[in-house]
């Protein structure tokens, strides 16, 4: 504790505000550097604030969120000058907690604070209209002062936190979060919808820029997850419902039927030899086949078999005693549902690869030798369908020339494209090109790019070396269209934008470096857990800089590409960050809830039951009160303070703390009656 803080602690006395005494409002107008002061005259705002009813003092400072700024407010509270605080500054999303703490530390009830958002709601959005911004800021201050006069002290409520975390998605991000939390002693439910954990990383061959073998670094982690006794691994499962709130979520998880008893199955694999059904293997992106009874790939965790009922013909061979010795086949298995109570949730649902079929000019899906980046990865993989010896799909011959096209579906402002940079494609194409050159030094490899973005640690060096030491040809230019030549070769028509001349190139194989997209069903997950998504479809963080792993829903965090495109190190870093944030919350054992819940005025309530039906949290019930008869009663532990009940109540019998009818009335009236 600093000396100043100790000093303050010494003089600190609880300022008792019952809400009935005359309000004395302190208005603190923040310059926010030039964010506010650069657009409107803060001294004039201060002068205006002084004229408002019940304003005892109005002050200006460069940054009220700074230590010095906070102390200015504290001193005014301590000296008894004010009993209500209005800070006119940024969004309450940003600094409401800061200034509430200021009040608390100075001995004033923290809910006697109101923030006027004159930055996001005025100077930023009306930057080009300073006069309008000034008028808006004045009104926002007037409205906040009006509300502040009606504020009443409130008590925070605390609820205990279930020391358990639900992690949705078992890729590299979800696994890392799970391992960190489990190691810290928290119970983890890791839900993965495919039959194995590992995610997209399991499909990769080598990883840039270090060229580690992806499987070699991933597989041990997968085994760690399976072995950790604090982790309950729920593969081939989906979260179907989430209720509750921070500290006390209840999730319903559907375990899809494997049609193979996972306890009994020994993973021997005899059934696969007998299964007569051959179908495309999702893991190899259709480049190889699997049987109807399968594990996705040899290192899958858990290494137990699943029957793909969409393709199974129910011939019954695998169920034969001589085929499945442990008698594990269960054709009539039904989905199972389980409920878990958790304090926190981490969303790590990962990504889908951009589907280039819509970009007709590149011939994907029409010409056999046009493939996407992930397919190339499988072709290069030593565990892939070709044992790491890539050949072109049309004739299974090793191509003499390969061209890569960057930014497929990314950095594209036209319809059907994504505007963002997918961050990994430059590097994965470079890596794949280099891998191919290592195997076929005499092959010609071209990479068509817009800009090469090699921003990570060791990336620039990797890129430099690709050109210098491996002879990979980087051509800056967009490809106009491709066509198929004789022998299924690909003829590329492009413009070299550095030389500013058109060019034509014939290659044996053409790889589209597709970008990453949010999962096609991310919207459903968002609705399920009630978090928001950014306009690009990825889950939205609470603050792009300062709270990159939090969501706006307390207790729910995001990890990995679910939040936006990332490479593996960034995904892991964010996963560890999410685990840490979840642990920080759970370590306290309890969480403070804003006391903004609904309250019933029993004298007004007539017990019609409308609020009971309107409440999504089941927080309201009709009770028989000894004095008032049948009335609504609020369970404050369940109430989240949305106000749906209050907005409909004919009797005005329900009010919402923090947003009472009187407070909103005075805002509308601007403090005048």
């Amino acid at each position, binding site marked *: 504790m600093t000396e100043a803080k100790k000093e303050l602690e010494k003089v600190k006395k609880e300022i008792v505000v019952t809400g009935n005494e005359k309000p004395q409002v302190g208005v603190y107008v923040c310059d926010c550097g030039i964010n506010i002061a650069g657009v409107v005259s803060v001294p004039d705002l201060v002068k205006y604030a002084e004229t408002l009813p019940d304003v005892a003092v109005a002050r200006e400072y460069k940054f009220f969120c700074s230590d010095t700024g906070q102390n200015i407010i504290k001193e005014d509270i301590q000296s008894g000058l004010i009993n209500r605080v209005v800070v006119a500054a940024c969004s309450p999303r940003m600094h409401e907690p800061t200034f509430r703490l200021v009040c608390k530390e100075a001995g004033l009830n923290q809910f006697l604070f109101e923030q006027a958002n004159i930055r996001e*709601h005025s100077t930023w959005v*009306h930057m*080009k209209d300073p006069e309008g911004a000034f008028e808006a800021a004045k009104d926002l201050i007037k409205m906040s002062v009006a509300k502040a006069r009606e504020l009443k002290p409130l008590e925070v409520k605390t609820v205990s936190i279930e020391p358990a975390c639900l992690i949705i998605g078992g890729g590299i991000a979800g696994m890392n979060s799970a391992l960190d939390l489990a190691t810290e002693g928290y119970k983890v439910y890791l839900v993965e919808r495919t039959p194995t954990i590992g995610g997209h990383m399991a499909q990769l061959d080598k990883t840039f820029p270090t060229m580690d073998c992806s499987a070699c670094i991933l597989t041990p982690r997968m085994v760690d997850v399976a072995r950790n006794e604090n982790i309950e691994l729920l593969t081939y499962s989906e979260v179907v419902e989430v209720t509750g709130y921070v500290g006390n979520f209840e999730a319903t998880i559907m375990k899809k039927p494997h049609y193979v008893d996972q306890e009994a199955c020994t993973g021997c694999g005899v059934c696969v030899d007998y299964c007569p059904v051959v179908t495309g293997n999702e893991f190899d992106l259709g480049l190889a086949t699997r049987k109807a009874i399968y594990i996705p790939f040899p290192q899958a965790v858990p290494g137990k078999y699943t029957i793909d009922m969409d393709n199974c013909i129910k011939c019954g061979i695998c169920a034969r005693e001589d085929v499945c010795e442990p008698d594990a086949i269960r054709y009539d298995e039904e989905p199972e549902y389980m409920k878990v109570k958790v304090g926190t949730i981490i969303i790590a649902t990962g990504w889908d690869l951009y589907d280039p079929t819509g970009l007709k000019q590149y011939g994907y899906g029409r010409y056999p030798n046009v493939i996407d980046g992930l397919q190339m990865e499988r072709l290069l993989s030593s565990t892939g369908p070709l044992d790491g010896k890539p050949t072109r799909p049309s004739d299974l011959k090793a191509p003499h020339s390969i061209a890569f096209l960057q930014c497929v579906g990314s950095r594209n402002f036209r319809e059907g494209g994504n505007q963002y940079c997918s961050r990994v494609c430059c590097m994965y194409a470079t890596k794949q090109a280099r891998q191919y050159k290592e195997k076929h030094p005499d092959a010609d490899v071209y990479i068509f790019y817009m800009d090469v973005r090699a921003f990570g640690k060791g990336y620039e060096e990797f890129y430099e070396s690709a050109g210098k030491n491996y002879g990979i040809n980087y051509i800056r230019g967009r490809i106009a269209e491709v066509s198929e030549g004789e022998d299924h070769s690909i003829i590329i028509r492009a413009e070299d934008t550095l030389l500013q001349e058109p060019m034509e190139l014939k290659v044996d194989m053409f790889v589209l470096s597709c970008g990453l997209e949010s999962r096609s069903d991310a919207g459903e997950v968002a609705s399920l857990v*009630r978090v*928001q998504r950014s306009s690009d479809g990825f889950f939205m963080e609470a603050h792009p800089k300062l709270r990159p792993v939090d969501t*706006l829903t307390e207790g729910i965090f995001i990890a990995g590409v679910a939040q936006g495109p990332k490479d593996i190190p960034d995904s892991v870093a964010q996963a560890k960050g999410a685990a840490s944030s979840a642990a920080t919350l759970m370590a306290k054992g309890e969480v403070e809830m804003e006391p903004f819940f609904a309250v019933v005025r029993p004298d007004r309530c007539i017990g019609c039951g409308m609020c009971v039906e309107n409440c999504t949290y089941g927080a309201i019930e009709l009770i028989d009160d000894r004095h008032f008869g049948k009335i609504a009663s609020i369970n404050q532990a369940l109430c989240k303070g*949305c106000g749906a009940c209050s*907005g409909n109540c004919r009797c005005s019998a329900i009010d919402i703390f923090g947003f009472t*009818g009187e407070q909103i*009335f005075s805002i509308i009236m601007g403090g005048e009656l």
Partner: protein
Amino acid sequence: MSRIQYPSNIRIVRVPCSGRVNPFFIIKSLLRGWDGVVVSGCHPGDCHYVSGNLVARRRFAILQDLLNLFGIEPDRVTFMWSSASEGDRFANLIKKVTKNIKRLGPNKKFESTW
């Protein structure tokens, strides 16, 4: 949001959820002489409070019908969905609202009560 510019003649009142918005808030604003009222909430399915906006949507549908019945121009009171990530949409809708209200002119119906 995202510093996208929109007209400066709107004032924002913070409520926890569109579900909190009682018809009185809207009527009182009109009585008070505001030229228009906008209620903005999260898109259906994305409600921070699960279904507060769905409760609100029924309320607002009825209120809008009744305002029309009583002869209040439909553009005086606007309901819209706009999520926290849709700065562009919010700005565009606010521009549309101000354009509509400018076309209607000042709200003079309740002048006597101001």
